[in-house]
């Protein structure tokens, strides 16, 4: 008989192999995370949920504590597979939070049925060990709540787009950097609703993703201008709003943007142009960092220079960071699937999505 407590590390793999279906799913997600094959944060989040759902539905557990340890162990393995893809950790913590909440609700129902004064004593949060208690209906409750979470993720773009017209006025000049599915959808939605505005896209070297972005926007009927990144400051003086793409929203209210985001946000701040970040809240991560090294990734310099060329430059090395940390004071507004939020209020949303005891998955 297998222990219902999931082991950590390598043993986890063996433990999961009892259930071939789940194990296969687990391996394939781990591999694609390791190889960075999952493109985009949203698919990543969705796949993580699918896997965790499968694990929860298959593995043996009786109490919330056991379930949480399974989720944590699997989650940890996923996070370790690709530590820079913060949404994985977000989703894992979100599910842990859901389990806690469901457990609390079910427990309350049970207590209410049993009656008695004990219920009133437990409201002080002294109930640390209560997760050990087995409550009926936890499984269905958690699965339902996760279903809602999936629904929420499916609707992220729709919800954000609903706000498009509120934040874009007629004849506005909007600057954006590189390519972002969220920003693109947001702008296209506004254009579809017949708002006339102009977009300036910084091409975002070295991958020049901005070009594709611009093509897509222009195809949607938006007046679009491509500029090189070097023109950002020059043009900023005539920009009404900067829309920043976002890879992760971090707990202090800052964000991780594609490389160049900091530069654009700072230029905007210097010229008093509002900086708005359009993003789904599934990217909100309960982690704190404050420097450019935070969750950054150094990409291959091949985008900067041909390998053969580097042979002629013995004294030179090449640096191609992937992301930028944009500190909270540079961001004026987050437009999310739950509405507009100020940077200083993000701590509150964190409290609604995550439990602080889950910040470490160990």
């Amino acid at each position, binding site marked *: 008989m297998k222990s219902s407590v999931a082991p950590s590390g390598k043993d986890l793999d063996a433990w999961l192999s009892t259930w071939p279906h789940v194990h296969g799913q687990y391996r394939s997600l781990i591999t694609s995370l390791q190889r960075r094959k999952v493109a985009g944060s949203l698919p990543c989040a969705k796949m993580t949920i699918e896997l965790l759902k499968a694990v929860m539905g298959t593995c043996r557990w009786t109490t919330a504590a056991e379930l949480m340890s399974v989720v944590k162990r699997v989650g940890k393995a996923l996070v370790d597979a690709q530590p820079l893809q913060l949404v994985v950790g977000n989703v894992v913590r979100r599910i842990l939070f859901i389990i806690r909440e469901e457990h609390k609700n079910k427990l309350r129902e049970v207590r209410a049925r049993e009656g008695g004064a004990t219920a009133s004593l437990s409201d*002080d949060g002294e109930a640390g060990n209560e997760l050990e208690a087995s409550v009926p209906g936890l499984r269905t409750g958690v699965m339902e709540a996760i279903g809602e979470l999936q629904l929420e993720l499916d609707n992220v773009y729709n919800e954000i787009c609903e706000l498009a017209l509120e934040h874009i006025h007629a004849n506005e000049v909007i600057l954006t950097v590189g390519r972002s599915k969220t920003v693109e959808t947001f702008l296209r939605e506004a254009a579809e609703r017949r708002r006339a505005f102009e977009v300036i896209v910084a091409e975002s070297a070295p991958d020049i993703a901005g070009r594709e972005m611009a093509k897509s926007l222009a195809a949607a009927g938006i007046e679009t201008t491509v500029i090189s990144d070097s023109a950002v400051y020059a043009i900023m003086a005539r920009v009404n709003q900067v829309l920043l793409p976002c890879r992760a929203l971090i707990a202090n209210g800052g964000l991780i943007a594609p490389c160049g985001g900091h530069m654009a946000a700072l230029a905007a701040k210097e010229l008093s142009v509002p900086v708005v970040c359009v993003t789904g809240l599934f990217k909100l991560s309960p982690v704190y960092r*404050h420097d450019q090294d935070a969750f950054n990734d150094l990409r291959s310099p091949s985008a900067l220079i041909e390998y053969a060329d580097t042979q002629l430059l013995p004294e030179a090395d090449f640096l191609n960071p992937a992301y930028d940390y944009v500190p909270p004071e540079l961001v004026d507004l987050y437009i999310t699937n739950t509405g507009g939020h100020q940077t200083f209020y993000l701590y509150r949303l964190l409290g609604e999505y995550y439990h602080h005891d889950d910040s470490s998955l160990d």
Partner: protein
Amino acid sequence: MPAHMPSVLFAYSYHSDALSYSLPCTIYFDTANAPVMEAALEPSIPPSNLPSHSSAPSSDDPLLSVFRSHLEKNVPVPIAGVQTLLHVMSSSRAVTIMGIQNDLKAATSELIEYERRISGGRASISFRACVELFFRYATRKNDDVPDFETLNKLFIARGHHFVANALKSRLGIAELGHSFVQDGMMILTHGRSEVVTGVLIRAAQSNKNFTVMVTEGRPEGSGFKAAERLTEAGIPVTVILDSAAAYFMERVDIVLLGAEGVVESGGIVNKIGTCQLAMVAKLYNKPLYVAAESYKFARLYPLTQADLEDNVDNDVEKPLFPPLLTGIEGGTATGKVEEGEGRHRQERGSSGNLLGKNTIFDSGPGVAAMTTKNPSCDYTPAQYISLLFTDLGILTPAAVSDELIKLYQ
């Protein structure tokens, strides 16, 4: 007092009741009212009438001896106060909730007055905040529980819970905060804070290599004490003049401070010099973190430096230059820092020894005519603070008010 009543009304109602327990009023009212409250406080416990208020309190005051015995166990002063109150609660002979509350109020006032004495004429914000919070937390009424006995037990249980949590908070903060210390960082700190040293030592224990720069913390030289703790823990420390903060700021990566009190705006009240340090840090875009236990959260809203109560700023009796500059020999006060001498390398120049004897102010006719001002703390507004490390989690300054509203609900 119904628990659901908004806290503002709650505080005011104390005032109108003119109860001898004036603590919430003193803390809560803005400064315009503060003098009134001070006046209200004074008659209730005239210092001259209390033998315990002499510098060497007689041991026959049971309350204070309990307090001192807790202090001797090296717990933070506010927690020692709370433990004393817990003692009062469990040994109270009152048979009504009101009676218990009154006992606690009386004890609280006495403790505050005593603490004011021992901390040099100024009750610390954290002490007052902590005992008030304890009072609120422990004696919150519960309508589900009708009989006094059960309720009293519940109160005491909550009290123990409060103390246990408060005692754990430093560890929790160290656990949360140490991840902000990264390899190779230069961390600037000011004054002496057990929480900050806790965070730094925890970081050192997790094998991070970093250096700490400590301002000397004039006039009492608290920075040296902090530096000593840190060097003992194997952390490289440099002590600098308080006035050299701007000079060194460009090399600093983060500023990490403690706080005497965290106020409603998310700003902090801390050792004098904190505000200017924070301003320099802001100018250099260096993140400034504050490590503070949640029991230091006070329902104060200072707007200017003058709003800080009791912040003695014209006390000529309290010398401005001891003990660091007025010479090592003579006076018991200097003894405290002697131990640090010689161990601290100096960054630069030999023109002055931070600890050395200085005779400039020893004599001279001009000295007598000088006015000196020596406030012990200042207020640092929230705009200069990046994050607070607390036992409630990592908070942005905006979250402080949120937590305070919840704590005092």
